[in-house]
């Protein structure tokens, strides 16, 4: 009996202590919130956690460094999560109370998935740019990042696909000119192969990059059909899409695509092969402009496993007119990403300061422009070429400037209207055509059925 009583006393004492500690914690938490500039923290101080799959660490740090020149008391910790792990990492983080204050938002399916965790940034855009803020930024960044009447993220800039990048040194070495038609492309590849150099490399196991090539082919046949099919306005069995898949197959049959392309990843495989000069051409978009800088390319070559990285001239060219239709090469893009503010953030005021500075002020957007990773969201901001160090400006500057001008003029979307199910179906269609397990007609029919099912 004595033992039982003592146990109860101990239990009671423990419960009292626990209750006391809990109360103290609650009170101290309340007190902390009250003393730190309100529930949203201070606008010009604090520590922020920013998560994204892009930009690279070095580019993200450059943004932060430039921001800290103006706001030295806001510390920002940038964490880059690999794109393939993005959902797996972000979903539980946002569901918890300790997720990132700021997270990258990609237009399309991810806006739908994560919109409930993102604060409406329309008031912030209005505060920064005025009531007519939508007229001052690229429309492509507003439409793709809006959902249910709210702006889930503010676009940092846009990226466009549709271009091919070449190694000018290798073309010069074998006295070749960049191809503009299918026949020229076949001849160029034959010449490179005869000299033991890979011609064109594509990571055809990744749906996003396959879509880029398919959209380029489709737009060369009949501009706009691919986007219309993406929206669901045109069936994927449309003759243009079938011809697109036929042409896609011809790239494999004519020796343009490298052996085993459908088992290749664009990143890291194709990127590393191009950066280590095993291949002379790669299908990449405007995001590749960052490697037309000395620092960007040196880091990329080193990351590709080259021991003594030395830049070589990489130059963008339009996607060759592989169908002979005579239509100009198309560019298509979306906001690369927007910065979203976590509704659970305890430092919302400081987070707003960073988001508005980087996405909607000339100072922030100039830093974005000069890194050549994105085409700035704020209209009128252009790269300051005098401050951008390119390894071969005579060869690179003009083509890169033209790429920016041509791509910026496009209003065609890249991924905006495609959910992951349709993207998977596109990958299945093009890889089944490539390995001969389906005809273009069969693959188009299967793709269309999957797209219809995903909308139901």
């Amino acid at each position, binding site marked *: *009996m004595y033992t039982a009583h003592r146990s109860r006393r101990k239990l009671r004492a423990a419960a009292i202590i626990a209750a006391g500690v809990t109360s103290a914690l609650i009170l101290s938490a309340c007190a902390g919130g009250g003393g730190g500039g309100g529930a949203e923290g201070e606008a010009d101080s604090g520590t922020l956690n920013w998560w994204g799959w892009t930009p690279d660490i070095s580019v993200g740090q450059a943004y932060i460094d430039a921001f800290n020149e103006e706001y030295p008391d806001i510390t920002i910790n940038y964490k880059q999560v690999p794109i*393939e792990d993005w*959902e*797996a990492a972000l*979903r539980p983080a946002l*569901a918890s109370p300790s997720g990132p204050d700021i997270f990258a938002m990609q237009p399309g*399916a991810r806006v739908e*998935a*994560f919109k*409930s965790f993102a604060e409406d940034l329309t008031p912030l855009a209005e505060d920064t740019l005025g009531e007519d803020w939508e007229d001052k930024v690229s429309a492509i960044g507003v439409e793709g990042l809006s959902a249910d009447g709210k702006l889930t993220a503010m676009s940092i800039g846009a990226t466009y696909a549709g271009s091919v990048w070449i190694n000018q040194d290798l073309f010069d070495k074998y006295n070749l000119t960049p191809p503009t038609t299918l026949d020229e492309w076949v001849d160029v590849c034959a010449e490179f192969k005869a000299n033991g150099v890979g011609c064109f490399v594509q990571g055809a*196991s990744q749906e996003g990059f396959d879509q880029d090539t398919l959209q380029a082919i489709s737009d060369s046949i009949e501009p706009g059909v691919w986007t219309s099919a993406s929206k669901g306005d045109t069936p994927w069995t449309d003759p243009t899409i079938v011809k697109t898949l036929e042409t896609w197959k011809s790239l494999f049959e004519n020796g343009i695509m*490298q*052996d*085993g*392309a*459908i*088992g*290749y*990843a664009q990143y890291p*495989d194709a990127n590393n092969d191009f950066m280590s000069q*095993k291949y002379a051409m790669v299908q990449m978009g405007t995001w590749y402009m960052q490697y037309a800088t000395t620092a960007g390319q040196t880091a990329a070559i080193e990351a590709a496993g080259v021991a003594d990285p030395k830049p070589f001239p990489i130059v963008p060219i339009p996607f060759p007119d592989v169908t002979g239709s005579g239509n100009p090469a198309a560019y298509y893009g979306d906001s690369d990403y927007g910065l979203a503010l976590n509704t659970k953030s305890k430092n919302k005021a400081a987070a707003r300061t960073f988001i508005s500075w980087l996405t909607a002020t000339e100072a922030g957007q100039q830093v974005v422009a000069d890194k050549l990773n994105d085409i700035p969201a704020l209209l009128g901001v252009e790269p300051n070429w005098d401050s951008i160090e390119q390894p071969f400006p005579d060869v690179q500057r003009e083509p890169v400037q033209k790429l920016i001008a041509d791509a910026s003029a496009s209003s065609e979307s890249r991924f905006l209207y495609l959910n*992951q*199910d349709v993207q*998977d179906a596109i990958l*299945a269609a093009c*890889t*089944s055509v*490539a*390995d001969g*397990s389906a005809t273009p007609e069969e693959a188009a029919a299967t793709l269309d059925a999957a797209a219809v099912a995903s909308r139901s």
Partner: protein
Amino acid sequence: MVATTLQTPPTRQVPSDEPALKRRPHRLSPPGLPWILPALVLSVGLIYYCIGYTGVISTWDWDGISPNPEQVGLENYLKMVNSPVFWGAIWHTIVFFVVTFTAQTVLGLLFAVLLHSQVKLAVVYKVIVFVPVVLAPAIMAPVFRQFYGADGQFNWILEHIGLGAITQPWLGQSSTALWVLMAVAVWQWTGLTFVLYFAAMGQIDQSVLEAARIDGAGNIRTIVSIIWPGVRGTTVALAMLGAIGALKTFDLPWLITVGGPNGATEFLGTIIYRQTIPNYHVGYGAAVSIVLLVLALAMAILLQVRGREKVTVD
């Protein structure tokens, strides 16, 4: 007339030296409970609760985030049985199990027999055979991606031994990618099979082996008639582990081929991850998980029962 007397039952006098516990048993706290509580909480709370919850989720149309999942009954299961990708994964699992189990059994048994004989540097061979077991697939995956690539070392070797005609992009075509994964699995897990067979052979009565020798049995006959039946229990256990392992296959196909090309290396595990994480179909992924669980249990029970029957007959 019989006089009846109602008597109160005698009150039991408790000896003063009897422990208090016996006098007033604590019904609410049996003596063993604290000892089994951690394991009970772990297994019931974590494992069985999660299985049950996964079963519930499998009847939802849910993206894993929305607070209001939609009840869809068995729709996810219907979608699954109508999916060619699902049946492709089942077929890949069967092929994977049959090929890898057969190859590992043959190689593991062979190594065990050889190393039970008088071999110099036997310890070194044992280590060499077993080392792949302890290497993480995540570490080895990039190596194999490079090794079996179109311009990888495997093709280089083939070219240098006069087999250049059969070089091909092993991971970049549907017809060969699954075979590459099976080769990697055999390379990785043969060491475990070998160790278990090596240990099992040590349990075989030496007098039986000696008697077989005296009766004139050769090496092959001894292996077939004495050793193979003697390690039957190990073979059944390995078959069970292999079947469950094949059903749960995820790391190798995801890290080396990402389920491709063209779905040629899709397994139930890759479907579950792809549907649950990147595609936000958490309900569908849960339905495939439940099917995987049921199949794994069925395989384990089937192999166990088959193994027992044979032992009884013997």
